[in-house]
């Protein structure tokens, strides 16, 4: 099972802000963390992550610093800001609403689901 692209995109901002709320991080580590959290089910690409980080930076939700890693190599670290934390809280409130509603729907239609699936496909 892979999560649909639209859903990945919609959840991208709270996901990144949430990970950065745990502590400052950099692109590669963020991507690995998402992979780890979703058991590899979330199909994140670099093309999604880095432009998103840049957008969050432009909006003032995160700030970045360059730090030397080894020799000439530099790494860009991102840290969440106060505005980012506020945005995260707001997003979380919205997501909670959505998840809550979905959960209620699915709890009510538990029997329907088994009915709708043809017998041959049923595990």
């Amino acid at each position, binding site marked *: 099972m892979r999560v649909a692209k639209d859903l990945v995109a919609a959840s991208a901002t709270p996901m990144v802000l949430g990970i950065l709320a745990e502590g400052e991080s950099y692109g590669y580590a963020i991507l690995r963390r998402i992979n780890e959290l979703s058991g590899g089910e979330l199909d994140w690409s670099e093309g999604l992550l880095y*432009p998103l980080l840049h957008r969050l930076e432009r909006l003032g939700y995160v700030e970045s610093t360059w730090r030397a890693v080894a020799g000439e190599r*530099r790494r*860009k670290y991102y840290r969440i800001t106060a505005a980012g934390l506020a945005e995260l809280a707001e997003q979380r409130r919205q997501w909670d609403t959505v998840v809550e509603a979905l959960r209620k729907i699915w709890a009510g239609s538990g029997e329907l689901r088994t009915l709708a699936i043809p017998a041959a496909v049923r595990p």
Partner: protein
Amino acid sequence: MTGQEGPERPDGRGGPEGLEAQFAQWRSYLRRRPELRKADVEELEDHLRSSVDQLLAVGLRPDEAFLVAVKRMGSLDDLSAEFAREHSERLWKQLVLTGGADGTGRDTRPRRDLVVMIACAVGAAVSVKVPALFGLSLAEDGTFYALNAALFALPWLAGLLAWRRRARARLIGVLVAWFALGAVVANAYPLAGDSQSVVLTTLHLPVALWFAVGLAYVADDWRSPRRHMDLIRFTGEWVVYFVLIGLGGGVLVALTYGTFGAIGIVPDDFIGQWLLPCGAVGAVVVAGWLVEAKQGVVENIAPVLTRLFTPLFTAVLLGFLAVLAWTTSGIDVEREALILFDLLLIVVLGLLLYSVSARDPLQPPGLFDRLQLALVASALVIDVLVLVEVAGRIAEYGTTPNKAAALGLNIVLLVNLAWSAWLLTGFLRIRRRHTPFPALERWQTRYLPVYAVWAGTVSLVLPPVFGFA
């Protein structure tokens, strides 16, 4: 892509140098994409390196690790498309005036360039006001200012270019001598304010001096035909920028006039004596510098205009010829006719020159080249008709400086266009022997000195020959 011998290498893993070379190649590949800034490339490279490190840790060989990591990153087109969506402004190439946009600030040359350019522009503005200290006013000594107009601005532009090219002392000597000779022609010749020679020198001296600017422009490699073509491009873009700056200046003047007028002050003197002359000579330098700075950043505009107007001019000229044949009326060659047809040839030559300057020489002949041939051929036919008429008149009534200059210019342009048309027929395989396109390019660049010599002749030789009439 790897350039490695494979597993038989002593370390058996492709080696870290091989890996570094691959990173370097990948980096340079990314740098070519306008959507990605230097910092983005660095960030993505760090990502790639982290990915490679992790793959090395699980036991892959360096070249394998690199391939897998690159593959995981996905297609670069998709990646840059995503970056472009977030940074759409990057696709609108912006002119970076002071450098340091990539956050490195290491490159101080653009800033130094800017300072020198401003110094040159201010120098030009000051030099145009210096004669006023000696009692020469713009209002009363118009002839003096008309003759010297180019001498206030072009030496500064040439100086800026020579400085940028780090011109050698000998070339600088040539430039100084060139401008000095121009100053002599403009001021030592006893040209009366109402003589024809004054007008001719006013028109031709700037052209002759522009070639001194051209020499400064090609100072780094003055013999190379490529640089001569660059000079043609530079000239076209300079004209475009100068006109644009002029339009902006017009708005500035109108607003200055209007706003000060609203509080009862009429800034005639300020605008006429200061803003216009200083702005005009300063704009000459600024336009030249802009062309230098924006090279490769903004699309060249002169070729775009050429593309737009070649079909239109061709249609008008062919229409004119058709009407001329239909009505069988001759061309009225009274008075300004020669100058008018000189202008026509200059426009046609310009259209030809700037499409040549922008054309990929290896492209096979196309519709546009045929259009161009039609344009040049119709201009030639019209011009020959005019020349025949004018030559008859000159034979009958004798010549004046105006007629001699106009006729000479006409012949200079006619020779160029006739041979260009001949080369074009060869390129379009209308003639049996095929001529490659670069022949046309070479012809145009080789012809450049002819204009310089002709403009020089008109301003240097013609006045004494006609007794400064």
